[in-house]
């Protein structure tokens, strides 16, 4: 039982960077833009967040840097695809290559400048970013570790996902935004400012991805700069969007399930011990395939893939 609770806590931690990436990508895809640059935006966020914390001694500054850097990266993508109508796949892949590259470049540059040969976050930031302890609550059996033992990113991630869900499904703007992803021509005819909301969503999504990157750069790396810290999590987030059926609240569930599947091999019990590790590495993707099959059998009711996803909107071709 104790081990099981620890497994769940680890699963939530492993799911959190995925949650940010997934919610960010959902915001992109809801306006019809398939952004394959999640990995790159997260890498840029990882670098900006870490360096922000390293140079400022302040965790909030680190978060802000990650958010702004993610937005900046998304701005490049948005200008390319929304304004210049470049191919979304190519622009996204380019963003991934560029983001990972520049993030490692800056990291290496900073290490060479550091006297100790390593970049370590100041103790003040490390303290603020690590798991919170609420006197009384965190010590409760079962409930304490499960609800009150995480680092601030976890609570922020759930909050961001909930707010994104509210924005998309419970506000007029959100419904308008969804219309853009379904049929931008009709949205345009209904005098919804298509370009404005595309920019808004892509930039907001990029910022959220950036915070997910900061999780990789700060929490996963334990407070020391290590290159390539995102290491593929951004791609898993792109897959998770499908798993979550483009719904932010499902993204919470999906990313924690994926997190659980990713850490399962470190918490093997009983019959699982003899199974090869490669099987556990495969599980998240096997489950995605199963979910795809199940949702397609249910017809289109469950999966809300934006109808115009992947296509740029040429007003003149309406």
């Amino acid at each position: 039982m104790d081990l099981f609770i620890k497994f769940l806590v680890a699963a939530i931690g492993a799911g959190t960077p995925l949650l940010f990436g997934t919610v960010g990508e959902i915001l992109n895809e809801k306006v019809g833009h398939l952004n394959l640059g999640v990995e790159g935006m997260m890498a840029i966020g990882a670098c900006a967040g870490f360096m922000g914390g390293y140079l400022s001694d302040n965790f909030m500054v680190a978060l802000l840097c990650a958010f702004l850097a993610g937005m900046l990266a998304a701005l490049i993508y948005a200008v390319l695809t929304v304004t210049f109508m470049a191919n979304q796949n190519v622009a996204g892949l380019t963003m991934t290559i560029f983001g990972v590259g520049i993030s490692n470049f800056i990291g290496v540059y900073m290490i060479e400048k550091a006297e100790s040969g390593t970049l370590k976050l100041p103790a003040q930031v490390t303290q603020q970013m690590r798991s919170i302890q609420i006197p009384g609550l965190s010590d409760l059996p079962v409930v304490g570790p499960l609800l009150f033992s995480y680092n601030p990113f976890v609570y922020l991630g759930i909050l961001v996902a909930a707010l994104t869900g509210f924005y998309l499904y419970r506000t007029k703007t959100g419904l308008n935004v969804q219309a853009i992803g379904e049929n931008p021509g009709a949205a345009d005819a209904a005098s919804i400012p298509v370009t404005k909301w595309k920019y808004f969503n892509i930039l907001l999504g990029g910022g959220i991805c950036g915070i997910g990157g900061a999780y990789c750069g700060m929490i996963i790396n334990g407070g020391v700069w290590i290159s390539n810290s995102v290491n593929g999590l951004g791609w898993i987030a792109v897959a998770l969007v499908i798993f979550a059926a483009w719904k932010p609240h499902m993204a919470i569930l999906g990313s924690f399930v994926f997190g659980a599947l990713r850490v399962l091999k470190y918490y093997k019990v009983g019959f699982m011990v003899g199974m090869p590790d490669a099987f556990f590495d495969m599980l998240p993707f096997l489950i995605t395939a199963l979910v795809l099959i199940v949702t397609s059998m249910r017809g289109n009711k469950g999966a809300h893939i934006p109808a115009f996803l992947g296509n740029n909107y040429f007003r003149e071709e309406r």
Partner: protein
Amino acid sequence: MKKILSAALAAILAFSMVACGGSTGSTSGNTTSGTASATGAGIAKEEIKVGVVHLSDPAEGTGYSYTHEQGIQGMMKNIGLNSDQLIEKINVSDTDAAAVENAMSELIEEGCNIIFATSWGYMDTCEALAEEYPDVIFSHGTGYKSNGTNFNNYFGRIYQARYLSGIAAGLKTQSNKIGYVAAMGKENGEVTSGINAFAMGVASVNPDAEVYVKVTNSWFDPEGEKQAAEALIASGCDVLAQHCDTSGPQLAAEEHNVWGIGYNSDMTKDAPDATLTSVMWDWSIYYTQAVQNVIDGTWVAGQKVDNYFGDMADGLVVLADLNSNLVAEGTAEKIEEVKAQMVAGTWDVFDGKTEITDNQGNTHTLEGADYGSCNWYVENVREQA
């Protein structure tokens, strides 16, 4: 959507094919150029050109490629080569055969006499190119293939340092549970023999302690390495050793106020409040000797190169300075005592004669150079927390 995606994929495919074509073209077109100095005598110091293929970017300041780069720089200094006598290729993925061949072909074109290929996955490309270019020496690290004339293999008895680090861990642990974050599972002899040596070192000073292994199944996985460490700490381990690239396990140990044993580079700089010591390579020992052999004419491409398997006595295998604030009392003395026997050659962990019992009750003998065949864990190793 589908159309665009397939168009994009087709474009990528076309690009990669162009890239491959380019590399093969340059390979076949240059058979005669480059170094043609297999005269039987050595190559003058000024004529030496060293090529290196790195797996990642050595400037990262820690981990595998960094350690090799330290060795290369040490060699440059020891021999006194100019910086323009060194050509390095970085970020060459060892699972991408085309990229490896491309990188090595460029090194050959630039006129390198000796090419150090630092990662396991470069082995087959080295073997093939060695046949094509008999006057270039291909020196491949951590593999097992060689041809005796211009393709050798170099590695070392890292298990000696792991055994010594096991002594530090065994003396330090209070819970008698020691964790080990391993990149690869039991089937990988390099990792597994290291775990065994470490566990035997633990057992030599603390027969009650057990070593718990978690496998990430990847040579580089920052998240997995951290998660594996967290899982080990959650199950009660209070010293974490590692055979993986990042200092993640050391940092996890520091965060949870337990201890660790680093690998590859001295990880005390990352986790000064946790790392007891680190198991390290000093590749400069080999690189210096190899290049010197080429200068002296001991090694001549196309005629003779030897395989190299260094150890603690050579200085190739090193245990970093103990973190004197953290290690248990008596650690330094005990390690010094065993190390003296290893260096003198009077005792070794894997001598090929002593019977070792595995955790299934079977007995084995193991010779250190034969580490690749080790696919069993010793008695005090546990695969399940």
